[in-house]
């Protein structure tokens, strides 16, 4: 075929070069994309299809001092549906099975329309086991319906511990903002109590599973067969100093009352029991928290959410007389041979009545035994207000104890400066009389009282009260003990011997709490009854046992009850029985006892 040229160029040459140029252009383009910009495209491709799914680790469990599990993880079942596979005609039958109002499921589906139809959607948390069994049985007729196991807190020992343990709930937007490198929306985080204070120890380390998703975000397979996955690490198990038996007795004894109990091992500052009443059921937070429950929790006039053990401040009545005794003895104002005559009252500006009739002439030991107001009225004037307040401070009042469950208030002890501010330099000195017997402006918390009596029991030395002994290292099973500050009063230990003698007589002599005397164990204590302008008096009892070698010190407050000896002291007796007379063989069975090696210097627990 003769093809006319274009000018001097053959037509086939034109086509030839057009073809070559096109190929060259495509190869250049491919080189640019696949070699030069490969990294950028590769990143986009990975973003497209690899999705990381956080694996929430198990929270550490809480064990009591004997290794009994107090707070554990229990499975809770969550109903899920994959909207793409789900048939909405199943709504009504599912609603019956999981016991929700008609229309519930379609409402949840509607509210979550914006998410991919291939991502399983949570319909309801905490469905009961019967519903799970039904789902299993009928799974073949339920396309797109499944359930998921999520771990929730359980309380297997039957201990309520509402103010002690605290609970977990969804992380708040504020906290999410502050700690965004750990938490993601919807995460559960410790709230109140130990759960909050030890959150960093018990929460563990999150894992990350990589999955491949397709263009519709539907899960296809594991990425690289899970080789790149990070497994989650369970949180540390905490060994608490709580003794389950003591805690249980205290909770039972305070049932139906308002008040608080704190029991401490005097030598170590370890808290054996911490109860605030009324309490609330922590299980309510574990599954689906009902609105009625929350409403009651926050509107109940008795304020069950309020931790009375560390937050409630009151004058503590006669239990405070020991301050004057300790101060006077330590300052040398009196000795055991100093006697004061009680004729039934004391006059300073006005007449202050002594209860229980004229006690006659008595020394400090018997004054404590009889709780003689007259003796202590006289004593505080001999000591002077500021020195008295100083001793109260030395014994832990008007400052926070530093207990490791968080919320706490310092209380208040007045001094002369305070009165000068209110009344001027000539403030009525008669005020001091009521301070001597723990009335008036004295305001203390139950945990301060417990620390105070622990310091007395242990001759002026103890440790900051605490509930967590340490955490258990998962790899070695060793206890990593936490370190707490030692509390030293700097008061002559002999002084405490004298005061303790008086406290011994309170129970075992002719004192105010003789009704709780026990055959097997010598209890020492001091009752108190604080006047309550709003109603019945508050009953107080502080003490320790055994007298010879104190192993438990306690402070008990029962609000609006009446006399300390009648209402508070019997609780102490039950706790001592539970703690000191418990079946020793029971201890041997506990699983952690043989494994915990003592004296291991562990990592220091922060805060």
């Amino acid at each position, binding site marked *: *075929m003769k093809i006319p040229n274009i000018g001097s160029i053959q037509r086939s040459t034109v086509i*030839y070069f057009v*073809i070559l140029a096109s*190929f060259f252009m495509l*190869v250049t383009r*491919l080189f640019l994309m696949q070699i030069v910009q*490969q990294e950028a495209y590769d990143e986009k491709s990975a973003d*497209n299809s690899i999705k990381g799914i956080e694996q929430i680790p198990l929270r550490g469990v809480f064990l009591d001092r004997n290794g009994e599990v107090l707070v554990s993880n229990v499975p809770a079942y969550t109903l899920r549906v994959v909207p793409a596979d789900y048939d909405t005609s199943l709504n009504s039958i599912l609603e019956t099975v999981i016991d929700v109002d008609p229309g519930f499921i379609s409402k949840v589906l509607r509210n979550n329309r914006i998410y991919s139809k291939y991502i399983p959607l949570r319909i309801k948390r905490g469905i009961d086991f019967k519903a799970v069994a039904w789902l299993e049985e009928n799974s073949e007729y339920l396309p797109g319906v499944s359930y998921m196991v999520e771990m929730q807190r359980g309380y297997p020992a039957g201990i309520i511990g509402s103010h002690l343990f605290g609970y977990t709930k969804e992380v708040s937007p504020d906290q999410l903002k502050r700690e965004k490198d750990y938490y993601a929306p919807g995460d559960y985080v410790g709230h109140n109590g130990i759960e909050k204070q030890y959150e960093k120890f018990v929460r563990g380390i999150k894992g990350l599973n990589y999955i491949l998703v397709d263009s519709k975000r539907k899960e296809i397979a594991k990425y690289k067969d899970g080789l790149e996955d990070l497994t989650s690490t369970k949180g540390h198990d905490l060994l608490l100093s709580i003794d389950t038996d003591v805690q249980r007795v205290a909770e039972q004894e305070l049932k139906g009352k308002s008040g608080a109990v704190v029991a401490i091992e005097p030598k170590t500052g370890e808290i054996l029991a911490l109860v605030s009443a009324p309490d609330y059921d922590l299980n309510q937070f574990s599954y689906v928290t009902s609105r009625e429950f929350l409403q009651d929790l926050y509107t109940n006039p008795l304020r069950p959410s309020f931790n009375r053990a560390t937050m409630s401040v009151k004058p503590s009545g006669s239990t405070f007389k020991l301050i004057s005794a300790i101060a006077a003895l330590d300052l040398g104002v009196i000795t055991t041979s100093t006697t004061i005559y009680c004729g039934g009252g004391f006059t300073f500006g006005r007449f202050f009545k002594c209860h229980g009739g004229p006690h006659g002439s008595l020394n400090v030991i018997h004054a404590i035994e009889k709780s003689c107001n007259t003796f202590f009225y006289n004593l505080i004037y001999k000591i002077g207000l500021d020195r008295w307040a100083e001793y109260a401070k030395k014994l832990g009042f008007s400052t926070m104890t530093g207990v490791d469950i968080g919320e706490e208030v310092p209380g208040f002890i007045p001094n002369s400066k305070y009165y000068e501010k209110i009344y001027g330099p000539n403030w009525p000195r008669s005020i001091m009389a009521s301070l001597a017997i723990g009335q008036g402006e004295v305001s203390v918390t139950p945990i301060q009282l417990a620390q105070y009596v622990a310091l007395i029991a242990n001759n002026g030395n103890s440790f900051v009260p605490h509930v967590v002994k340490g955490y258990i290292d998962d790899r070695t099973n060793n206890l990593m003990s936490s370190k707490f500050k030692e509390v030293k009063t700097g008061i002559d230990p002999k002084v405490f011997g004298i005061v303790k003698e008086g406290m011994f007589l309170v129970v075992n002599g002719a004192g105010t709490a003789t009704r709780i005397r026990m055959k097997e164990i010598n209890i020492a204590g001091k009752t108190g009854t604080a006047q309550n302008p709003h109603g019945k008096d508050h009953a107080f009892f502080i003490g320790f046992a055994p007298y010879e070698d104190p192993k438990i010190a306690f402070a008990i407050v029962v609000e609006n009850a009446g006399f300390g000896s009648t209402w508070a002291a019997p609780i102490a007796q039950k706790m001592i029985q539970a703690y000191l007379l418990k079946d020793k063989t029971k201890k041997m069975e506990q699983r952690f006892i043989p494994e915990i090696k003592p004296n291991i210097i562990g990592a220091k627990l922060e805060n």
Partner: protein
Amino acid sequence: MRIDYKLQDKFDLWLIIPAAMLICIGLAAIYSSTINHPAVHSNFQRQLTWGIVSLIVFFITYSLPTNSFRYIGISTYIFSILLLMAVLVIGRKVSGAKSWLYFSGIGFQPSEFAKIGTIFAVAAFLSRSNSNIDSIKDIAIALIIGLLPVGLILLEPDMGTALTFLGLILILLFWKGISLFGLFVVLSPGFVALSSLFGIYYFIVALVIVLIVLLFFRKDLLTSGSILALNLGAGFLTDIAFRALSPHQQTRIQSFIDPGADPLGAGYNAIQAKVAIGSGGLFGKGFLSGNQTQLQFIPEQWTDFIFCVIGEEFGFIGSVLVLGLFMTVILRILKIATSAKDEFLSLVLIGILVIYFVHLIINIGMVVGIMPIIGIPLPFVSYGGSSLVVNMFLLGIAANIYRTRKNYT
């Protein structure tokens, strides 16, 4: 007639080997893109069957007497036109275009078949013994023969295929020896018509360009004037035709002109296709290991987006290999066409070359992001029986002409 018994002499391995390799690469890519796709699992099997069928078609075509193409030309064209009309009436709609005909369960696309008919008809017309490429009448008739199937295909509507037909007619005219002025006369109304779709300013600018080029050719006033009038008419006619379309059809044409206007539809595919190819790198992610492909980020990847599988899983090396194989076939056909002494056969060969080349450039250009998204398959590689059989038939013609090339010396 001298008989040469060397295989190479009768049977062009430069055509069949690259084509067979492309079919095999295509099969691998189809396998990879459908393995995780239960609904289209059978695609690999089907393509394999069609591959065998197409080879048989190739050898039959190869063995036919070369002269027979001259005689079946017109009837094939008329049959194609009838099929294209039929598809508008009884065709089945697949992804928005009424382009499929079904006969006892087997579907095929008449527009694929029409390629054969159109090549034959235009080539036959242009190679008439009394044809004159410089006569306006001859050019006009050739254009009418070519534009008739284009119009019918546009009604389906299938823009991509229609575009390949336009390329086909133009290059056939060019090969026949149309003068530059004649080419300008043919091209300018299309250029103006297309510009008018973009708006009045584009229309005016296009007319001004046409005017300047006209002055450059220095033709007499009557010729220049009538060509300008033709251009004006084309512009206004396009506008009138566009207004006559239903709003739905208007949107389709607009999205064809400006694919960026629809980022979630065509735009999404364009982005995912580029990501697939770019992330392949030098050696690719490996067979069956491309996540873009395996996780179905590109819809219906086994058809028009098949090159993404190759780019992603076989990388730059695989992509260039495919381009090289195409280049081998296309340049080989150009060589045969250049040396062919018979005008009809030479034109047919160029027609085949254009069909392959335009498909290749549009298809790969689209997946690498230098062309708008126009749905046309990659010859030999994309899934689809009609396309494969027709392409192998065309290759059979080329091999046939090579076989008997010495008979026409």
